[in-house]
């Protein structure tokens, strides 16, 4: 039997250790943001936020350097929005299927499959996209090279699909059964009920799922690196080539000498990406919080 004093001391120690580690760990995010900000500081003061974001030329090693990330920013948005346009209808369809129409056994098969799909590394998606999809475009449409924002969007859509499906399904299942009974016992068909009652009730959660997918698509590196074509021009259509921010950083970081404007500008680009993604995440938090207090409110 331990002495009570010793036990009490041990418990205090454990609590203090856990709290300290938790506090330090949660400061990590702030540390990352701050550190990247600090590395990129000269860019903000020398070039200016607006000029950096809207500049159409990226010539980081000429003297004086031209540092504008507009082409990459546009590519990032275009690729991610494109992915969403493809993935959202399919994802919502699949979520509705699993929540309302699929036989129980089939839903039980699809759920782990979604997990497997999220487990496949992005480099494999990128590789398959480049080796199969891009080849297919080249052969079918007789192109010199089949890489494009569209190809990247297509592969990103497959990658974010599981996230959209599983989060939307949660939102749909959160609608209490009473609404199903009340709606269906009026003699309307199931699809009618789904479209007119269920989806409107779950729409916040489904929007949240979409926003989550958007954030994922924006920050994804390997697929866009291997598929988007990597040119520094402002894309003019979905079928242009482009170089989204993550690809820019991955390609140029190794060759940028620390302390040069090139190096600093890559950190500025990283900060822009980070701020975009964090904003998207906060937006989703707001959506999801509303869902939690929303659906069961009635």
């Amino acid at each position, binding site marked *: 039997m331990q002495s009570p004093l010793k036990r009490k001391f041990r418990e205090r120690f454990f609590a203090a250790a856990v709290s300290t580690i938790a506090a330090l760990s949660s400061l990590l995010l702030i540390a990352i943001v701050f550190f990247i900000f600090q590395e990129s500081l000269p860019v903000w003061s020398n070039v200016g936020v607006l000029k950096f974001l809207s500049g159409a030329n990226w010539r980081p090693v000429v003297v004086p350097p031209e540092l504008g990330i507009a082409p990459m920013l546009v590519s990032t948005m275009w690729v991610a929005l494109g992915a969403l346009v493809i993935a959202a209808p399919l994802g919502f369809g699949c979520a509705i299927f699993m929540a309302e129409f699929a036989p*129980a056994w089939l839903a039980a098969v699809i759920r782990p499959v979604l997990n497997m799909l999220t487990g496949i590394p992005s480099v494999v998606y990128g590789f398959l996209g480049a080796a199969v999809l891009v080849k297919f475009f080249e052969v079918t449409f007789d192109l010199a090279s089949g890489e494009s924002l569209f190809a990247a969007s297509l592969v990103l859509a497959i990658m974010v699909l599981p996230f959209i499906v599983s989060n939307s399904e949660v939102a749909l299942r959160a609608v209490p*059964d*009473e*609404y*199903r*009974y*009340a*709606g*269906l*016992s*009026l*003699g*309307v*068909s199931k699809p*009618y009920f789904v479209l*007119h*009652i269920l989806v*409107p*009730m779950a729409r916040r959660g489904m929007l949240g799922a979409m926003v989550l997918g958007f954030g994922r698509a924006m920050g994804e590196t390997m697929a866009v690196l291997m598929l988007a074509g990597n040119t520094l021009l402002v894309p003019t259509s979905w079928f242009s080539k482009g170089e989204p921010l993550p690809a820019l950083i991955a390609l140029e970081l190794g060759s940028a000498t620390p302390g040069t404007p090139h190096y600093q500008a890559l950190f500025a680009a990283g900060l822009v990406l980070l701020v975009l993604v964090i904003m998207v995440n906060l937006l989703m938090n707001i959506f999801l919080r509303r869902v939690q207090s929303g659906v069961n*409110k*009635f």
Partner: protein
Amino acid sequence: MMNTVELKNFSTWYGQALVLQDINISFCNHSITAIVGPSGCGKTTLLRSINRTAELERDFTCQGEIQVFETRIYEAKEISAIRRRVGMVYQIPVALPLSIRENVLFGPRYYGVNKRSQLDNIVENCLRKVALWDEVKHRLNQSADKLSGGQKQRLAMARVLAVEPQVLLLDEPCSSLDPASTRLIEELLEELSRELCIIIVTHNLPQARRIARETVFMLDGKVVEYGPTAALFADPKNEKTRGFVSGLYG
């Protein structure tokens, strides 16, 4: 008296569990029948079987036959047509996430009514039938969430009446309501029973005595006794019924 709803050797299961066992019963038109019994005796499942919403639960299976106005409902192809003819109001008042007006019109719009004058008529008629018209006529386009529990329950009834059912099923419609709302709904049911066959599941024995012409007592998935309400309460034929109505269990 014409039999409107008739169950013949009807049994149901959830998975392996037998919920209703060999039910034989017929319900009369233009009257209120109450189903009473302890929790878990299968009365709600019986009710839900009659408009084919019991099968929305997992692993529901059934055997035997239910006829509604001579239609064998478990042989019908169009489930939604059956549900339309047999309306149901649930224990928890549910306002669909629409305006008050659109709640009432949810069914009619689906069935293709789209003339404005016709729609207006349906809204006013149905809300008048459930005595809600005067309370809400100036705010028909507001969200139905804002109504009180009693109002929501009457709105649910109006919503069901709007699809012109022949049978109205109610599953403990007053259990979450205050006495005043309960009283109001009971009056409405007596009024509606002139046109409809009404079957109500209730936990509240005084309520059954007040409004039901006939009462069914169920226990463990079987019908134990069925007869005129007054007789069933005053002079039960079965020992178990006697125990239940005198409050021994329930």
